[in-house]
């Protein structure tokens, strides 16, 4: 009896000893969680995200502010509930100090709400770009160093109205918060010019057979604006091509991304010359940017033909975290207050231009209007046709007036 009690005690002692070791390890190392999608339709984007974090950490030699960095990865499948579960696991079980992620629009909204319940940690957005995440009731410990989906479309509406001469456009887009955000960004310029969006077709995320959505595109549309993520957009492009439809396309940001352009298939021949816009473009003619591409190609020889937008998003986020940690010399005391103050004031010189934050901790950054072109080696890339400098979240409108227009949704905005 006694011996059993003793053994029990010894066991407890052993466990506590183990705990104290891990606690002391925590106080010297900074634990950073990475959340991206290695399941579901955004797998290619998730791989890019983790490559980006890896490169940024390696460049810093896994240290920041004089402290070692421990990197813990988790995968979601693009759904908000899964992202939330994984974020909880990182924060509550792995006890990360800083979380970088998530990937997709709806996930971002869920993580922002969760951030409010974990005020002692800092959340830095990866690539999710729904507008409400930072525009409406933002979390004080949630930072987004990438532009949102509406910002990404700055300049595109004017470009297709003025240069391409489109007047009536039909929209086929993913039925989720990021889809609404992108369409709002496109429409706010296009409708202001006097263009009409005559039909909006929302397709559920993860749709693989778009043929009935394609059948609904009205004949009198001059062009079709499309926005869906990852593998879905490749299915759409193929089926659109096979259906014999003739109308030209306007590409939402995810459709012109390298994760789509690098995919192999007969749909590729339809892409050349199609306009799009994003916070980064692989055709940027700038020494800093070319250096960044060279680093990517050297480090990831089995990667894409040039770094994708999700790579850029996670890279900027990780660089921002490292810069913030360096400024406060790794001091995360006082519930990370100093670190957060440093993050808010950062001005980062990134490969696609300078990034700074507004009062909601949302990025102000350059946007690139592009057209898909073929490089001499046969690969597709986005040729820059116009740069819109320092686009803010309200797209240049006064904040109150912009918020009063309402959050993006299936029916907002509307100009039939």
């Amino acid at each position, binding site marked *: 009896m006694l011996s059993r009690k003793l053994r029990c005690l010894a066991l407890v002692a052993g466990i506590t000893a183990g705990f104290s070791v891990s606690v002391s390890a925590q106080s010297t190392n900074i634990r950073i969680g990475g959340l991206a999608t290695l399941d579901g339709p955004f797998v290619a984007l998730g791989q890019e995200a983790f490559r980006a974090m890896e490169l940024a950490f390696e460049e810093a030699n896994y240290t920041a502010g004089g402290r070692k960095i421990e990197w813990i990865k988790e995968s979601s499948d693009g759904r908000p509930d899964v992202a939330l579960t994984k974020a909880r696991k990182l924060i509550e079980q792995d006890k990360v100090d800083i979380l970088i992620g998530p990937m997709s629009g709806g996930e971002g909204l869920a993580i922002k709400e969760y951030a409010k319940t974990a005020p002692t940690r800092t959340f830095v957005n990866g690539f999710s770009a729904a507008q409400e995440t930072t525009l409406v009731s933002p979390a004080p410990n949630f930072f987004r160093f990438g532009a949102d989906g509406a910002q990404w479309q700055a300049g595109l509406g004017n470009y297709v109205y003025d240069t391409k001469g489109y007047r009536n456009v039909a929209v086929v887009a993913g039925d989720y918060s990021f889809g609404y955000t992108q369409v709002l960004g496109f429409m706010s310029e296009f409708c202001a010019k006097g263009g009409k969006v005559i039909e909006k077709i929302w397709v559920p995320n993860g749709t693989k057979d778009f043929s009935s*959505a394609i059948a609904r595109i009205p004949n009198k549309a001059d062009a079709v604006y499309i926005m869906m993520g990852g593998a879905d957009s490749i299915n759409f492009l193929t089926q659109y091509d096979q259906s014999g439809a003739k109308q030209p396309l306007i590409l939402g940001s995810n459709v012109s991304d390298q994760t789509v352009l690098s995919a192999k298939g007969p749909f590729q021949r339809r892409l050349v010359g199609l306009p799009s816009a994003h916070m980064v473009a692989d055709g940027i003619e700038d020494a800093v940017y070319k250096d960044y591409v060279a680093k990517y190609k050297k480090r990831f020889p089995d990667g894409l033909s040039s770094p994708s937008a999700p790579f850029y998003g996670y890279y900027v986020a990780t660089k921002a975290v490292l810069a913030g940690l360096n400024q406060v010399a790794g001091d995360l005391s006082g519930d990370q207050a100093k670190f957060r103050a440093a993050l808010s004031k950062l001005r980062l010189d990134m490969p696609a231009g300078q990034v700074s934050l507004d009062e909601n901790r949302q990025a102000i950054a350059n946007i690139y209007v592009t057209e898909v072109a073929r490089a001499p080696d046969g690969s597709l890339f986005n040729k820059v046709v116009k740069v819109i400098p320092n686009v803010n979240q309200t797209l240049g409108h006064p904040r109150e007036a912009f918020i009063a227009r309402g959050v993006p949704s299936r029916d907002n905005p509307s100009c039939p």
Partner: protein
Amino acid sequence: MKLLLLATLNGITLAALYFIVASGFTLIFGMMRVVNLAHGSLYLIGAYLGHDVAALSGSFPLALAGGALGAALVGMAIHYFLLDRYQGDDLRQALITIGLSIIAADLLLARYGGLSYQFELPEMFYGSMPMPIVSGYPIFRIVLIGLAIAVYLGLWLLVQRTRFGIMIRAGVDDRHMLGALGVNVPLISTLVFGLGAALVGFAGVVGSASLSIAPGEDARYLLSSLVVVIVGGMGSLPGAAIGALLIGLAEQIGLAYFPTYSIILSFVIMVAVLAWRPYGLMGRPA
């Protein structure tokens, strides 16, 4: 009118694909009572292998054969080494196949990466053919209907009209008696499993030629096969055909007229069928 006609055509062609995927599933379940939850992984394996064969040989028929053969070999290995020894132990077999599907998904991601792949179809199958009212329709989707009908007839003939089919059916009814008559029952089971796997591998190549191959497709097709087979009745070939038609039409007509709710529609059909006929439309109590 044009939209309704197009949506119906799309529904039928999607149903053709669902049927080819689900026929292998229902064959394996109906004949051996194995709920093979790695069915989606076999789809993906067939699709990727078919893609490799097409890239090497440049021939689409060879890709179809390669995808089917590769999936069949993997399927037979799974059955021979892992499932056969637990014959009749449903829960254990289900858990083994779930485990296998998770391992396969990660291995395929490591080997093929996250990007989507597509086939270069032969010129004669690519593009659209002229048609009344709807003006043009993708040729390959019409080919899909023909393939599904061929699979249906082939399976029906095999099971109902051949000696091998008689042995399969006898094995379902009384495994031990069949063994006592001198038939190598484990071999028959492994062959049937291989046939089911070959069908889904074939479907993988066909499906990725009309849509695309990407990680995550395994779960989608496993789910669609489950829904189709549950609606149609486990183990029934005509049931799988009817279930595939119902689900395919529901998805496409839903996508055309009320896209937001199109996903729910398939499950509403499933619930309604289960409430009315708990064993599925053509199913019998096991």
